[in-house]
């Protein structure tokens, strides 16, 4: 891989005298033979905001889990105040003064703010909990971060932004040397973001070392003193934030050449649009979009996680509440939009959540393969076991699903083979439009390249394909046209030479923000799940 650093002289120089609160050297993490992060050396200094940026899957979350004791590194060492440390778990890290503020809200909604703050470490007087002391202390912490709720408020009744502050307050109950934020603004609207950034600045000004992980480059630009870039599980470098533009950051995050993983692009299709979606509103307007796709075309959907991509298509399929919108397939208006109706009409959706929504992990392969096409495989009353076995054998050969036995359960396959089984499952319905959400999440490069070939083949056979992907190289390498989503809206359409990783990242992270309703719905769904 060729490393091209677009900014000369940006590699960090350690200024003398800056107090390093937490220092990592050669940090690496491997799960079995798979290295997810390696060669990370950085220091977080007291009184600075140090931002970590990188694409999805670059290793940001692994890094912060290593630094906060949630995961133990396989290599490298940590130093605090010049002494080597190692954290057995998150509790040990917190005792040493390093705390991670989680992205998801981890609070008990039926308890009060104070009860949540002191959950598991209640103050007591004799055998009884000392509510008065806890409420007093809570009020102090809340005031110090500028939260407007009271210690006796029930957390469930607070708006999301206040809950986020309560979560931060919980992390700051004890004095901390290093505070790590994991995408703290993912669930917040714009004005709330500004307030949160103030909290972060206040922490810094009081001398804490802040590690700030975010995919919102505008925030990073506004907040960070220094920026470390991760890419593909490796550290690219650390730069002073001054003089690094959002575009510069995006280029650093991407900075790589496309290889031969992807099939050559197809000629521009001449046919009219097959699927036309106009003004579809999902989740009561949190996501709203219009788009169309032609036969013989791969339409890529880019954007950060939480930008509403999955929600848009789950809404189209009737898997989420959707309103209004005019949808036509091959020129005919589609009125009934359930998975079943769409299947009859010839449109299928492959979920991004292979294990949770795609396959029955404890059921045999054949039952999984035919679940979506039961009426097609078994036209009669009874199940036709022989036909089912034949369909499985055909799918295994056609999609190169590597199995020890045809009688295995779906959960016994590797991720790549599960993904191929899922693809075979929806293709069994013989669709004319295929929507694939994260076609290669968590699978190895060999299976990836096969799946790209399948997609290429089905598009060349005249089907229309929509690929939703967080992996930029994949999006750029596969798509004939890319729509970029941000905060529930399509903000850019890229065609031809415009389809570059930088272009997608820039459209996905910059420009006018209008609130992050889409991200909020995703979090809400997560809380339900």
């Amino acid at each position, binding site marked *: 891989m060729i490393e091209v650093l677009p900014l000369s002289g940006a590699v960090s120089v350690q200024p003398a005298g800056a107090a390093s609160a937490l220092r990592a050297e050669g940090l690496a993490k491997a799960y079995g033979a798979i290295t997810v992060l390696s060669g990370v050396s950085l220091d977080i200094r007291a009184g600075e905001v140090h931002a970590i940026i990188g694409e999805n899957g670059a290793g940001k979350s692994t890094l912060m889990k290593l630094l906060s004791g949630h995961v133990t590194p396989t290599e490298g060492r940590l130093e605090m105040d010049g002494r080597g440390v190692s954290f057995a778990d998150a509790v040990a890290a917190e005792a040493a003064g390093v705390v991670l503020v989680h992205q998801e809200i981890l609070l008990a909604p039926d308890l009060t703010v104070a009860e949540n703050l002191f959950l598991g470490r209640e103050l007591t007087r004799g055998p009884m909990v000392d509510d008065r002391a806890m409420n007093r202390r809570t009020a102090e912490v809340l005031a110090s971060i500028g939260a407007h709720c009271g210690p006796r408020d029930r957390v469930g009744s607070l708006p999301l932004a206040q809950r986020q502050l309560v979560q931060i307050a919980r992390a700051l109950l004890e004095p901390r040397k290093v505070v790590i934020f994991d995408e703290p603004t993912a669930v917040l609207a714009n004005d709330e973001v500004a307030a949160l950034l103030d909290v972060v600045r206040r922490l810094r000004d009081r001398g804490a070392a802040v590690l700030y992980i975010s995919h919102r480059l505008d925030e990073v630009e506004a907040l960070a003193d220094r920026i470390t870039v991760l890419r593909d599980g490796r550290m690219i470098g650390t730069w002073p934030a001054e003089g690094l533009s959002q575009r510069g950051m995006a280029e650093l995050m991407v900075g790589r050449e496309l290889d031969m993983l992807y099939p050559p692009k197809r000629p521009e299709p001449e046919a009219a649009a097959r699927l036309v979606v106009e003004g579809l509103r999902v989740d009561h307007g949190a996501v709203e979009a219009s788009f169309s796709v032609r036969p013989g075309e791969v339409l890529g959907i880019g954007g950060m996680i939480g930008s509403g991509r999955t929600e848009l298509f789950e809404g189209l399929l009737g898997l989420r509440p959707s309103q209004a919108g005019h949808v036509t397939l091959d020129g005919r208006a589609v009125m009934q939009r359930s998975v*079943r109706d769409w299947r009859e009409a010839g449109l299928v959706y492959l979920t991004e959540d292979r294990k949770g929504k*795609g396959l*029955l992990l404890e*059921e045999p392969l054949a039952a999984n393969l035919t679940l979506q096409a039961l009426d097609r495989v078994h036209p009669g009353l009874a199940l036709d076991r022989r036909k089912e076995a034949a369909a499985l054998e055909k799918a295994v050969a056609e999609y190169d699903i590597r199995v*020890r036995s045809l009688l295995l359960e779906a959960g016994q396959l590797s991720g790549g083979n599960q993904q191929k089984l899922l693809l075979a499952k929806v293709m069994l319905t013989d669709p004319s439009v295929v929507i694939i959400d994260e076609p290669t999440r968590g699978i190895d490069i060999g299976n990836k390249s096969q799946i790209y070939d399948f997609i290429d083949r089905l598009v060349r056979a005249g089907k229309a394909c929509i690929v939703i992907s967080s992996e930029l190289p994949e999006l750029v390498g596969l798509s004939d046209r890319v729509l970029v989503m941000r905060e529930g809206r399509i903000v850019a359409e890229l065609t031809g030479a415009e389809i570059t990783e930088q272009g997608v990242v820039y459209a996905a992270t910059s420009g006018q923000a209008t609130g992050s309703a889409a991200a909020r719905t995703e979090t809400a769904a997560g809380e339900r799940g």
Partner: protein
Amino acid sequence: MTSTATNIAGGEASRRIRWADMGPFIALAVVVLIGVLLNSSFMTGTNIANVVTRSAFIAIIAVGATFVISSGGLDLSVGSMMAFVTGIMILTMNRLEPSMGANAILVGAALGLIVGAICGLLNGLIVTVGKIEPFIATLGTMGIFRALITWMSDGGSIPIDRALRDPYKPVYFGNVLGIPVPVVITLAVVLVGAFVLYRTKFGRRCTASGSNADVARFSGVSVAKVRTMAFVIQGLCVAIAAICYIPRLGAATPTTGQLWELQVITAVVIGGTALRGGKARIWGTVAGALILEVIANLMVLSNMVSEYLVAAVQGVIIILAMLAHRFIK
């Protein structure tokens, strides 16, 4: 991959799966063996016929429960529903007897099936349309059905008309080729149940909904429809059990079918069906119902343990079955 390799591995996989599924039948064999060793009168023809016949009600209802549970539901109302359906049937038969004679039994039985199906539909709709946890929904209808039978019988009993006793008697006491009629009916219910569950698209969708409702939804399966239908099947099974039950005691009372829901769920679970749904074992359910009845019978026959402790022993059995399940996994 060569086909030989596939076959060999396939053989291993199927052997392993079969072994795990044998659990309830092995348990049944062990219980029977203990019975033979403990008491000489256990293995007599009349006693065996008696045990199997008595287990028929639980077995029939438990077939329905296998559908409900494997689709991700639970029905606590079966015992009360059974009493309610029995009451409706007897009242109908008694009313029609003067004009129709013994044919009143057929009409009453048909009505029983309809009422059972409607009761099941009611449970199903509360769960799926009302989106109420099956445990709570059927806890509610359990109370309703129980109160209705108590009200209908005015706290006493609803006896069947004397004129109907004789023509109805063979349904419980008769036999076909030496096999008691309730056993024949049970066998028929189990065969149909096994066919629907294992050999039809509905059965496949049923286990898919229980295994992972999201996957089913994303695959275009109407989970609500499937679950509602499972409750209707449960209602039908309850009605069939009621049809067999009436000639046995000849009356419906406020205690008819009391606590049967627990025995039914026990039979299903020790039969190997997963309580969280997704895995259905109809024949295992039958073995479960037999195990419960054999244990009760043994305790009555032998003097080692008081028969008042039957429920306790059955309780121990279900816990042991669950533990065995965990360790086999």
